[in-house]
């Protein structure tokens, strides 16, 4: 018998032995899958939780793009779409079809209903800061629309200033 024949014979014998063996029941290893899922869940929770504030633009609102890279710091968001101004989940003032603030709500650049809402919020925030023994920063984050008119924007900033907010930031979408 040549070595080649011997090798083939042995191979055939092994194959036959394998065939006769009872099939082992395959068992799925869950540990590695659970590890992956846990890592993804923790990552997602962390990425959502690390933002100091959650910006949720109103329907149809297009936030301006910018190359700015400064992170958004904790503050009170004011949403200004082309239709209305939202503060604290409440629609405060309507904008006209031309994109101007409802003239009935503005007097000498001061938006009355917005001023009332912001003053109330500022008072609450000041009391909370005092109770915690920290200084109130008074930061407003203006989440405006790309098409928001400059006149409407400055009226909002002016009103926020009158409501004792001292720091202003425009929320933008970071571009590369």
């Amino acid at each position, binding site marked *: 018998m040549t070595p080649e024949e011997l090798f083939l014979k042995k191979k055939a014998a092994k194959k036959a032995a394998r065939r006769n063996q009872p099939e082992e029941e395959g068992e799925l290893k869950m540990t590695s*899958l659970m590890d992956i899922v846990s890592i993804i869940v923790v990552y997602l929770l962390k990425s959502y939780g690390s933002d100091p504030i959650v910006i949720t633009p109103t329907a149809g609102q297009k936030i301006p793009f910018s190359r700015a890279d400064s*992170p958004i710091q904790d503050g009170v968001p004011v949403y200004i779409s082309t239709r209305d101004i939202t503060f604290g989940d409440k629609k405060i003032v309507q904008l006209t079809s031309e994109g101007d603030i409802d003239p009935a709500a503005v007097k000498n650049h001061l938006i009355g209903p917005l001023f009332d809402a912001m003053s109330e919020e500022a008072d609450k925030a000041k009391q909370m800061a005092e109770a915690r023994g920290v200084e109130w920063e008074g930061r407003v984050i203006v989440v405006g629309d790309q098409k928001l*008119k400059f006149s409407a924007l400055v009226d909002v900033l002016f009103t926020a200033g009158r409501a004792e907010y001292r720091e202003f*930031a425009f929320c*933008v979408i*970071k571009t590369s």
Partner: protein
Amino acid sequence: MPRRKKKATAEGEVEANLIPIMNIMLLLIPALLLAMEVASFAAVNVSPPKYAATADQKKEDEKKEEPLNLKVFIMEDGYRISAQGQQVGAEAGKSADSTRPTIPLAKPGAPLDDFERYDYAALEAQAKKFKQQFPNETVVTISAENTIPMQVLVSTMDALRGSECKLLKIAQGEEPPPECYFWQPIVEAGAG
């Protein structure tokens, strides 16, 4: 009262079948990740708007003797830039020129909602020139006509700050890099 007989069960330990749950999870996670709109937000810090300055404020400003006092007015026909009270590109002997902008539109005749109608590159080049002359200046006053959209204002701030400027370094306590020109904007209303 008859006593209830205890059932003698030969049941072994029952293991929960996690495979269907894992199947759903594995399908859900990529689906949610794909559905998620990823937009990273950033902030452009601005100083509050100024209206007409009072007499006292004006006196104070004069005492400080600000050397540059850079002002950029965004008009519907382009940018008017003034430094030290003199409009750049104005006729000789005039402090301002209402007939001609310093930097005309890049796309003349384009509608107002075309945000690329302004020549941001020319504005940045002008800011770079000023920065070379006044390396310690970081403040710029920006004003606009009432109809100017917010995107144009933000893009103007980007150009004045410098396209290569990374403010995150400054926030971390580093020295302002030379590629950052005027990164402290003041929004002024009613000046344009």
